[in-house]
């Protein structure tokens, strides 16, 4: 498949526009085939496609400041198939970059998407890693993103996982971040599920270095018979380490949810806090929106999108 033909798919509109932004680099893959790669200046990019999976390696040069986002696209346009992605990312000392990963499965009936990422931020590097998931309405998919992230001294990592459209299917996220001295990590995950979807968001931050910081923020909206679990784990193991876990789930219809914030302190001068809220969509809010002319479904959708945004 050629890149142009691939990008012509209606589900890829957002990506099409993103790839036109100068002058970022990109890796675009459908299934286990690479459709296009572009290496921006200062980045060593290697991408290989094998029948068993994709191997993508990115190395950001020391001191590099990437002017625009680097886009990764992992899609499966067919209704069935397997996609394994192995991603290695190294951000050199004091480099700064934004990476946006688009995972697009427009009509999944039997799809497995397995992502294994290893990320290393060297001293003072700053990386923002956004994952935008766009799933079709069928829900026939298994999505398992896994990431191990190491933050050296003063490195700063921000990740945002967003599934705002379509069904979650069986989604299981597991991210582990280890932060050294004065490093900072912020993990945000926002997802919604319906039908028989099952979602597990497990995020861990280990504050190993002095004055390291961590924030976990998870938002999950569950409708119909969906089931969800949020596990936000922060371990404070060094003096002046500060962490916070903030989990919020909203439920509608027969959906079931659990939120488990787990905080652990292994050093007397570390401080880790948490908050968790789990609740039904409020009748008063739904009625206020319906009194302005929205249908019950539209009112529900508007409330949920609001909650996922915050």
């Amino acid at each position: 498949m050629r890149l142009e033909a691939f990008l012509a798919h209606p589900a890829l509109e957002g990506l099409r526009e993103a790839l036109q932004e100068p002058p970022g680099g990109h890796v675009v893959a459908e299934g286990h085939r690479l459709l296009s790669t572009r290496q921006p200046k200062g980045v060593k990019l290697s991408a290989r496609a094998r029948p068993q999976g994709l191997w993508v390696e990115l190395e950001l040069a020391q001191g590099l400041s990437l002017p625009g986002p680097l886009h990764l696209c992992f899609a499966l346009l067919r209704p069935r198939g397997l996609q394994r992605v192995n991603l290695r990312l190294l951000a050199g000392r004091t480099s700064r970059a934004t990476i946006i990963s688009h995972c697009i499965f427009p009509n999944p009936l039997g799809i497995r998407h397995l992502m294994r990422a290893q990320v290393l931020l060297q001293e003072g590097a700053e990386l923002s890693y956004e994952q935008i998931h766009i799933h079709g309405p069928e829900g026939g998919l298994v999505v398992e993103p896994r990431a191990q992230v190491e933050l050296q001294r003063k490195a700063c990592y921000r990740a945002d996982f967003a599934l705002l459209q379509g069904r979650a299917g069986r989604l299981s996220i597991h991210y582990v971040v280890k932060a050294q001295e004065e490093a900072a990590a912020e993990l945000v995950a926002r997802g919604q599920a319906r039908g028989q979807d099952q979602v597990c968001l497990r995020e861990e931050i280990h504050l190993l270095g002095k004055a390291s910081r961590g924030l976990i923020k998870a938002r999950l909206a569950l409708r119909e018979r969906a089931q969800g679990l949020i596990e936000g784990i922060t371990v404070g193991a060094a003096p002046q380490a500060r962490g916070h876990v903030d989990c919020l789930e909203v439920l509608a219809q027969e959906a079931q949810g659990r939120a488990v914030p787990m905080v652990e302190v292994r050093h007397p001068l570390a401080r880790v806090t948490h908050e968790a809220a789990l609740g039904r969509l409020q009748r008063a809010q739904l009625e206020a929106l319906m009194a302005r002319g929205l249908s019950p479904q539209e009112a529900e959708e508007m409330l949920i999108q609001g909650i996922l945004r915050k």
Partner: protein
Amino acid sequence: MLLELRRLSFKARGRYILRDLELSLKEGELHALLGANGTGKSTLAYIIMGCEGYRPQGGEIIFAGRRINHLPLHERARLGISLAWQEPARFEGLSIREYLGLGKALSAEQCLGMVGLEPAVYLERPLDRTLSGGQRKRVELAAVLALAPRLALLDEPDSGIDMLSLRDIAKVLRRLKDWGSTVLLITHRKEVARVADRASLLCAGRVVFTGAPPETAWHYTHRGCPLCDGRRCHEA
């Protein structure tokens, strides 16, 4: 008549909140509803809007010649009924612009201007607990204004609003009237009721008096109720 309530009764936990209530609103009229705390004013507004848990056990709600007792809230909204809540809900992650954008009669900017909130400051603010009570109430009034509804139920739009801003409320009421909206204005203030065409007084779940606003207000402030002198003779 745009709205006719006939022998409306509503019971909650075995107790009558409204009992054989009769009220008619003429098309295009601004009708004030007065009454002491707990007489059933908000309950009446919820029943007309069709809020959950507020199905009358007896009586008729006739809107534009059609019985709407069985219609759910959102379908009543589509017929042109809207409500500004006495204590409006808060929304996390929803901006004032989005909330007001649900109405198409006036732009969000114009509506905010009409209720005395500077659009440049307020449009993008979230509709959450960071707004003061009075600010949230003004946004609620603006949201109903944005819809230019056929019937606007305004539940104490003036409570929690400072004296100076009462003028903004009068401006909104005039605008709704110019558009031909019918307004049921629930209030405790004589000076607000005075702008109405007619006013009714509620006592213990019944309309006990309807007439010119000054006369209704006089009964309300001097006697509480013309029938029972405020002792709530109708209470079972």
